[in-house]
């Protein structure tokens, strides 16, 4: 057990600090939710890429920095960027999920064509997986593509396409081989969002904001070579992508800073003239959550070490997202209770949503519910933990045919 960084990492730490001291003023404000990158953000992204503080492990030929993976380096960079409160770089589904998928199963041509503009933020991707009828059962996708005159002709509907309204491209899971069994009939297509026949409608969530969309396809035509791997391989490719989604660590730093914010809120909020921190029933809730957050934080450090060693963390990794989401929800629930009646003012529509403390906490609280649902419902996560983590047997196949 040694919680200090060795020479190599301290040097990197110094480098990053120097970079921030010199260029930090060029950084856009961090946060701000999902939107098309501003020119300022694109410029900052270029700087990060150039110094290897983004795309550090992506091959040079595809626009990255070309270094071998060293998760501690990544942790050092993330830590310094977070401490200095500068923009960590563009993060979207194209960068976090599609790029690693291409690197794993794409052709050299596909990598050359797509990775560079994607990581530079010039091409924005959205994910076309979920459908209204198949939320967690992705393999039941009904959106169809048939080949006509050397083109895929796509018809159907996708939901939860978060950035569809400003995306350039979609990676789309759809059914191309209707005669084959459920999991073998899918393909993974790359669809320009400007193609005629695509309609994007905003999907308002319980927060009152439209951060997601529904996307409708009516005779949308794309060339048949706009496909990753072959026809019928879609389920395999989609799972590669999902693997990278699940690898996105439930961020323990986020829980730690959220805990600190709730603590601070409890120290300055009063109820009938009494500081809420002095009311033991509230304080005990905070202390319980502190225990959870500490365990998560040190667990994250343990995982980081294993990752750095190239060890397979198995169960330890599988639990992170589910655990972190639930703790995050309990923290935001406590914040909402501390704010109390005076904190019920809520206006998610305008600028206040970003700056008003009460609105921000309420949005977080509802968004946490969304996180439990999104990316595979809680039930599916528990199945994965039970089956892949603990080795328990799968549910016996239902007699009824697939679909629905």
């Amino acid at each position, binding site marked *: 057990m040694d919680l200090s960084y060795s020479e190599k990492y301290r040097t990197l730490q110094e480098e990053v600090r120097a970079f921030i001291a010199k260029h930090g003023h060029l950084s856009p404000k961090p946060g701000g939710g999902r939107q098309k990158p501003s020119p300022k953000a694109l410029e900052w992204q270029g700087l990060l890429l150039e110094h290897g503080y983004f795309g550090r492990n992506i091959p040079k030929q595809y626009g990255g920095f070309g270094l071998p993976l060293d998760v501690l380096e990544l942790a050092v960079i993330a830590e310094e960027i977070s401490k200095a409160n500068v923009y960590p770089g563009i993060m979207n589904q194209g960068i976090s999920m599609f790029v690693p998928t291409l690197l794993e199963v794409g052709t050299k041509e596909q990598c050359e064509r797509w990775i560079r503009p994607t990581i530079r933020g010039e091409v924005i991707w959205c994910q076309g997986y979920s459908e209204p009828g198949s939320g967690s059962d992705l393999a039941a996708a009904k959106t169809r593509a048939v080949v006509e005159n050397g083109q895929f002709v796509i018809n159907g509907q996708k939901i939860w396409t978060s950035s569809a309204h400003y995306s350039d491209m979609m990676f789309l899971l759809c059914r191309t081989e209707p005669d084959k069994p459920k999991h073998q009939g899918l393909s993974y297509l790359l669809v320009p969002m400007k193609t005629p026949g695509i309609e994007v409608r905003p999907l308002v969530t*319980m927060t009152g904001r439209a951060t997601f969309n529904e996307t409708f396809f009516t005779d949308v035509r794309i060339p048949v070579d706009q496909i990753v791997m072959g026809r019928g391989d879609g389920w395999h490719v989609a799972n590669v992508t999902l693997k990278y989604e699940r690898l996105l660590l439930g961020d323990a730093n986020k829980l730690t800073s959220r805990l600190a914010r709730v603590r601070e809120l409890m120290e300055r909020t009063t109820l009938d003239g009494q500081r809420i921190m002095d009311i033991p029933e509230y304080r005990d809730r905070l202390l319980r959550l502190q225990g959870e957050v500490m365990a998560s934080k040190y667990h994250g450090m343990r995982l980081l070490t294993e990752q750095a060693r190239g060890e397979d963390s198995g169960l330890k990794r599988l639990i992170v997202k589910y655990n972190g989401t639930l703790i995050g929800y309990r923290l935001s629930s406590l914040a909402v209770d501390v704010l109390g009646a005076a904190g019920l003012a809520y*206006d998610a529509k305008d600028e206040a949503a970003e700056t008003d403390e009460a609105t921000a906490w309420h949005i977080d609280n509802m968004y946490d519910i969304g996180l439990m649902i999104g990316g595979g419902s809680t039930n599916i996560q528990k199945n994965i933990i039970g089956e892949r983590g603990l080795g328990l047997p799968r549910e016996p196949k239902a007699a009824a045919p697939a679909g629905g």
Partner: protein
Amino acid sequence: MEFALTDEQRMLEASLRDLLADRLPMERRRALAAEGRGHDQQLWKALVEQGITGLAVPERHGGAGLHVLDAAVAAESLGYHAVPGAYAASLVMAPLALQTSGTEAQQQEWLPRIASGEVRIAVGFAGGAGQTGAAKVDYDGKTLSGRVQGIIDGGGATHVMIYLADGRPAIVALDAKGVKASLIQGLDRTRPLLDVTFDGAAAVVLSAANDPVAARTRVLDAGRVMLAADTLGAAQAMLDRAVAFAKERVQFGRVIGSFQGVKHTLADLATSLEPCRALVWFAAHAQDALPEEARLAALQAKAHLDDVCREVARLTTEVHGGMGFTDLQGLHFWWKRIDTNRQLLGTPERCRHEAAVVQGWVSA
């Protein structure tokens, strides 16, 4: 021994639910929430005709003279249908405040107008109610100055009743001079709160109670029971919808309700929610019939319902999957209602602490 609703109470419930199912389809609720005024004249008129405005007003003042339990039955139905508009404060707490603290003349002046639906009084507290936010007013014998946040039933209010620190309620017209009232667009857009700043506003103070603090406590507790009943109705609506959804929605070739993951979650929620109804009934009944048990029951009902129903709200939303998170299903109206009720008149933490004090388990 009859621990049950009377036939009259069942009829009140049935007719109210019929009315609301008819007049308040999801699109209407959504439209009213979008407006955010917390009041709809058409719906209000229908509720007046149903007699809701007079439930807690004595017969001699033009009401039905019913008890807190009747009012709770109505509150549960209003929560079940997530009804936009005033109820707990304007139609239960305010009339009760007038009866416990008003002179006969004051009652004569105000109660008939509450029963007729003409006057709607939002209610707030200058401290002591367990709410966060500004809560301080000075009364100089004639006028009120100060600021109170978190005033309940702001939507469509004509007046506001503020409980002074000494336990007496003061009524101020919202269109009076020296009153600056903001309707707060809140989490629950169907029932906005008021934030009022008074600057020498003319006030009518109700001073007829022998023990004004005890009188205020009765009103507070009645309010807590109403919020608990409303939360119960809202949670029951969410559970009913989740059960229905689980019977229809197919994933992985099976109706999702056949998966133990979903089935056991719903069974757990039903197990914790169903006994809540008896607790709410008892707490409401105790307000009129069992004075020695009234305080504890009101505080525990508020605390217990808030906690149980927050879990119901979270997990029934989860059972709906992605659709539960959208505005399409409208589940969030109930979610927000439950969360809002929780923050009013004392969170569970605050209510349980007071319950300990009431029982002498700890000193105040």
